[in-house]
């Protein structure tokens, strides 16, 4: 039952925040998320490290749809990330959002509820339900509180993800019917669908349906084009949630569903998926360098970083998968942090144009220092979380595909180029805009310090994350190798 509450807490919090104004809504949101965080930690620590909680209630029994939620290590890591970034998102929009504050936090919390649900659901119908649930409030976040081009960006975001969702839904139904024909049992339950007997061709097409849906969300090259628009136009909290969490649902979907449900088809498809990953790494990094809009630049770095995730997922060995889990967390913190930082910056300068920024270090050294650390995390500097993650992914992938790994490693050079470009154009150089404003306030410094501290921790002692994820990853790998035999 506590798992249901985990989803319901943000939902209820959102409803409570809806009629409130300003401070009230913010504190309610903080409270709801903190409570959920406490709850998930309590549930986890009560367990033994495997699937610590499992809730399965009848929902629509005629159609074999159950309310099946379960928490294992991967879910736990990602839910903690979700709730922590959610808390930071509320804090980061403390002064940025001034209109319809209640409705804003309602949308934010409902998005988070959808994401938490996605990470918990083990019934494919329920998963799809949460998958769609998170899109609508996210759309509203962009469309109402976004920047200049918000209408276009929100439409694009909605249509891309909705089109992906269509593929997902068709593939889910296809899988369920194939399963029903083979076994006579109508069920949407992930655990039961795992070893559905089906022909290779059918498995391949169904797998492709799942893959496309998740690849849009990830986003994998060349389906990434919604992301720069959405990230650029979203308000800070929206960018944070998009980059930090929403993209992870795509990776999570691949990890939990697309690959375990269709092990052989995925193995066949792996070289292509990895090639897409490498292409994304390089293409995203090169294009990031060409951008003038700071948020757009950071959005393209996400394409590059999530390319590593795709690469590691389809390498499918423990090292790469642990790297993928850590990369999801580290990317959420680092890129989320960059978006928060840019939010703070553009709140002061009212521009994100790299041609106009510059010399910020003169004005706000604390902002510059924090920016430097986050940028270094983006380029994968050792000592910060992304380094361990990317290295593990590459170590793992190298066993499977050395040439592709070598190409992906070139992404490190491209990452250096865009990262240093950010520093040069924003913090260094002359103060061309004549900027003059206050350095970070305590609340802002606290948010950034938390992110940087977490990144350092993951960079120097990431073992706790690996320990948490180990059992869950092992069982996923067991499922897949079982399917092979």
């Amino acid at each position, binding site marked *: 039952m506590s798992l249901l509450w985990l989803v319901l807490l943000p939902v209820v919090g959102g409803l409570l925040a809806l009629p409130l104004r300003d401070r009230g809504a913010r504190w309610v949101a903080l409270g709801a998320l903190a409570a959920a965080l406490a709850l998930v930690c309590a549930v986890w620590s009560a367990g033994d490290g495997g699937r610590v909680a499992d809730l399965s209630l009848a929902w629509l029994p005629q159609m074999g749809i159950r309310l099946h939620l379960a928490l294992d290590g991967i879910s736990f890591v990602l839910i903690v990330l979700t709730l922590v970034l959610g808390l930071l998102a509320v804090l980061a929009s403390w002064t940025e959002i001034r209109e319809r504050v209640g409705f804003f936090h309602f949308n934010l919390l409902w998005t988070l509820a959808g994401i938490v649900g996605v990470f918990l659901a083990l019934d494919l119908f329920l998963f799809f339900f949460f998958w769609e649930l998170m899109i609508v409030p996210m759309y509203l976040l962009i469309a109402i509180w976004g920047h200049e081009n918000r209408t276009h960006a929100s439409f694009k975001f909605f249509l891309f993800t909705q089109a992906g969702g269509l593929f997902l839904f068709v593939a889910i139904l296809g899988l369920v019917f194939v399963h029903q024909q083979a076994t006579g049992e109508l069920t949407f339950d992930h655990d039961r669908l795992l070893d559905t007997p089906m022909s290779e061709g059918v498995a391949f097409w169904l797998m492709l349906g799942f893959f496309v849906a998740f690849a849009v969300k990830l986003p994998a*090259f060349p389906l990434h084009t919604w992301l720069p628009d959405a990230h650029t136009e979203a308000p800070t909290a929206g960018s944070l949630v998009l980059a930090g969490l929403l993209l992870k649902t795509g990776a999570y979907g691949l990890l939990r569903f697309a690959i375990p449900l269709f092990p052989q088809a995925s193995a066949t498809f792996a070289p292509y998926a990895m090639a897409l990953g490498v292409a994304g790494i390089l293409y995203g990094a090169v294009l990031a360098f060409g951008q003038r809009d700071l948020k757009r630049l950071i959005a393209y770095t996400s394409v590059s970083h999530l390319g590593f995730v795709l690469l590691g997922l389809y390498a499918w060995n423990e090292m790469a998968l642990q790297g993928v889990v850590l990369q999801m967390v580290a990317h959420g913190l680092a890129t989320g942090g960059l978006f928060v930082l840019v939010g703070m910056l553009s709140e002061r300068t009212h521009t994100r144009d790299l041609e106009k920024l510059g010399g910020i270090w003169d004005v706000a050294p604390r902002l510059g*220092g924090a920016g430097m650390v986050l940028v270094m995390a983006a380029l994968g500097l050792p000592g910060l979380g992304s380094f361990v993650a990317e290295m593990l992914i590459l170590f793992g992938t190298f066993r499977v595909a050395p040439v592709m790994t070598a190409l992906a490693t070139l992404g490190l050079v491209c990452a250096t180029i865009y990262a240093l470009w950010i520093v040069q154009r924003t913090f260094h150089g002359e103060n061309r805009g004549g900027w003059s404003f206050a350095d970070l306030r305590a609340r802002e410094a606290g948010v950034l310090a938390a992110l940087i501290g977490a990144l350092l921790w993951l960079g120097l002692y990431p073992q706790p994350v*690996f320990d948490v994820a180990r059992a869950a990853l092992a069982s996923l790998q067991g499922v897949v190798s079982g399917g092979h035999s």
Partner: protein
Amino acid sequence: MLRLAWLLPALPFAGFVALALLGRRLPRATATAVGVGSVGLAFAVAVAIGAAWLAAPPAGGAYVQHLWRWFDVAGFAPDVALFVDPLALVMCGVVTGVGFLIHVYATEYMRDEPGYARFFASMNLFVGSMLTLVLADDLLLLYLGWEGVGLCSYLLIGFWYRDAANGRAARKAFVVTRVGDTAFAIALFLIVRELGTLEIDEVLVRAAAQWPAGGTLAILVAALLLAGAAGKSAQAPLQVWLPDAMAGPTPVSALIHAATMVTAGVYLIARMNVLFALAPPVMTAVMIVGAATLLLGAFSALAQRDLKRVLAYSTISQIGYMFLALGVGAWSAAVFHLMTHAFFKALLFLGAGAVLLATHHEGDVLKLGGLRRRLPVTFWTFVIGGAALAGVPLVTAGFFSKDAILWEAWSRGGPVPWAVGLLGAFLTALYVSRVILLTFFGEQKHAAEPERGLRIQLPLVALAALSIGGGWVHGGFDRFLAGDAHGGEALFEVVAAVISLAGVGVAWLAWRRGLWARPDGALQRFWRSGWGFDAVYHTLFVRPYVWFARANARDVFDRGADAIAGLARGGNRLLVASQDGRVRTYVAGLALGAVVLLAIGVIFARPEPAGAETATEVRP
């Protein structure tokens, strides 16, 4: 005593944290105390550890201090652990000792900088990272230090960040070394896949046991490591970043771009020498890279007009010597030269810095001259440093270390590397004499302030002493490092001495005749530009990359999505146009539709019912 090893990197890191978090609020005296004190204490620890080592070397010739397990995934478990052995101790001594002197110097040199605390924070971070690099027990930790020093190099080259040119130089340095680092990273992937560990000792043991000499894997790994080392140590063809790195403050050039960081590649190869020995072709490649870089740097140094750029090319050239030595397998000679080079090149840079302080940052040697009387301490120490660099016999450290390399080149590599080394020695003596003559002799062309105080002069004198005395420990050094000592052949020492003195003599003659101040020829311009590497790289890599990124900034794949959107929008326009509000148009459409439907009915009417119809028609 050895258990204090963790303090070596920890002290400078602590200094960095303190300065980075509180730097702006600390009074300058406190910032100085933290910044210099942390490195000074680290030096004291290094000395103490060294003394303890000499008194009672630990069993096995190495001491490992495990700090914590970094992570443990799928049987791959790198530790954060420190590995202390003679090589690491020598490096620590150089880094902390020379580092401390340079920090002291910098307190005066950077006196009036608003970014004083930021400077010392970066310098401390550098020293900490460098010590991590040399003490790392695990290649992954070494990589951490490796990237860390790269970051500090970037931060410090671009220290005066308001000037976009400095930023460009800093980015160039970071990106070019990152190219080498990529090769290094791939080498790590290979090692992990094949040997399952990155712990250096274990890697060397397993590699020696599992990989046959001359095998593909050994060659591949060694070649990739060489590429990494070449990037960091500014060896051909990745040497292009170092001359530009002179944009940083002079203490930075002395510490990072002369004494320590740029020699990290030498350290890496020396550390992994067992693995390189398994790959003879790569050893040859190391030698060729060293020899080529040695000459390339020396010729370029000959044509430079900027004091610091001469020294930068000289550094490239001298590290070429070290690579040459590594390539013939004489790694202890390479490390010996690394150490003496750290002394005299740091000295030369600090001397150049003193000149720049006096002349308000006029670094063009053709515009300087006659500074010898105005800056006596600087002059004498600079001459000592120059003599060491030129390898003036018997009294300088550089003579002993360079002679060791030449001797090893002859005895292990044959006449060709030896001849290249000898030519390099001649050129070295030539360019360093040229710089000294142009800067300190002749008539004074540029106004100069008197010398600054003790904090400038003491480091100069100390380094000068080391530049002279550092060579006399040669025999002991070899025994300490490699367990045996080989003396040079007397004949070779004489030849080398004559060659370097000849270089000095030729430089003096040319100066007397005014040849150095003559206008440039094409060859000189070519040398000054660093053999045109920059232009080639710019055309081959930089321009296409920038062009592609800019031209495609709007993302060609987004046009696909736009095309779909355009289709929808176009369809919308088409249908909107059909709704023009004229009743007559609608009626026409109605009629047309009816006609079309009827036509379809007629054309596609199935024959059988039509036949049945006719039949009923016939009946009445």
